[in-house]
């Protein structure tokens, strides 16, 4: 597998999923009130969608802009 520029969507969603996984694995949800589940899922999804909707930056975008200025 080759290294590529950082993929923020994968990173953010990975950290969120890893966090939830560890909480479940350690039994941390015991005692969690049901009212918290909905908002927490909504916030998590919101963050992921925010990164997914972020316009992709093309590698040559800056160079094209500089060339136009010249």
């Amino acid at each position, binding site marked *: 597998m080759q290294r590529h520029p950082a993929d923020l969507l994968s*990173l953010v969603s990975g950290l969120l*999923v890893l966090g*939830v996984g560890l*909480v479940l694995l350690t039994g941390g*949800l015991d005692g969690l009130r049901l009212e918290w589940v909905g908002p927490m899922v909504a916030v998590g999804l919101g963050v992921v*969608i925010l990164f997914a909707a972020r316009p992709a930056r093309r590698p040559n975008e800056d160079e094209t802009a500089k060339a136009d200025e010249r």
Partner: protein
Amino acid sequence: MTSQDTSGHLLRRRTTDRVIGGVAGGLGDYFNVDPLLFRIGFAALIIFGGAGLVLYLIAWVLLPAEGQDASILEGILRRLGLTPLRIGGIVLIVGVLALVLSIIGGADLSFPAFGERPVALWAVVVIAVGILLIRRREVAPATTLAATDATPRRAPRVKATPRPRSPLGWYVISALLLSIGVLALVSQAASVEVQPGQFFGAALAAIGIGLVVGAWWGRARILILLALLLLPIAITASFVTAPLEGGVADVRFAPVNNAELRTEYRLIGGRLVLDLTDLTVSAWGPVHIAASVAVGQLVVILPRGASVQLQSHVGAGDAIIFDSRDTGTSLEHRYVRTQPYGPTYVLDLQSGIGEVLVESEPTGVR
């Protein structure tokens, strides 16, 4: 043929002359009928159970707007790196599973707007959406060719060199299966009780690590979808803390003497009724009973005025202990009632997701 004619044969949401999202207008244009009929239909379905709102929202998300070739959903999925074919396949599998559960298992995922077999209807809808998504992908090149006759020719696209497929997704799937397997082996070998939610936790942790790795090496954004599918099941399963023993059934136990009385009554799913009203114990003293239903209802009926020491735990659902009712998650109850005569029932009751109901024998039975 003009561009207008071409778009007239495609199902699109209206962007002008619309009331809300242009869905009814687009359907009217497509079927060449007054959009008012569709508006009345949606309104009627909203009033009778709310299905109209759901169907309207689904159509709004799935139908591309006029002049566009991708729907809102497709736009989001493309950003997530998911192709219609993959999504269609997943939706198709979910639909087929729901259909099988509905027909064989008699599962009830009822929705008030639909009749006695709502799951079958929903499953058919999901399967149709799955097939539609796959077909959209298959017909897309033909549509593009037809459109080129009517619209000015665009500059030919330079095909990007396809990226080599990353094996990361498969590595993560194997790590996920390994972690679940090892957890199960450890629980068996060391007699450590591992709850269902913990298995899902291990699976999600493996996916999370895979995604974090994929942020720099390899790519496996499809894992985001897998995580989203697992997440609600994992959270639900985490509330199942009762032992997974005893099968799935609707059973009633009414022991009448010590020989028939057991110390443990277990069920994985269904309804378990433990009727102690006819029980005659040989000696007065504590009668210890543990009973649990992982998913379902646990009912204990005690003789009127009996001495009782009980503790109950409900992961998510209802706990009805005599006259006290509680709804929510992680419900813990302790109850003590002492009488000068008769045995004392020491009860340890659990329900993962469902209900624990403890009641006295109804008045006037004897």
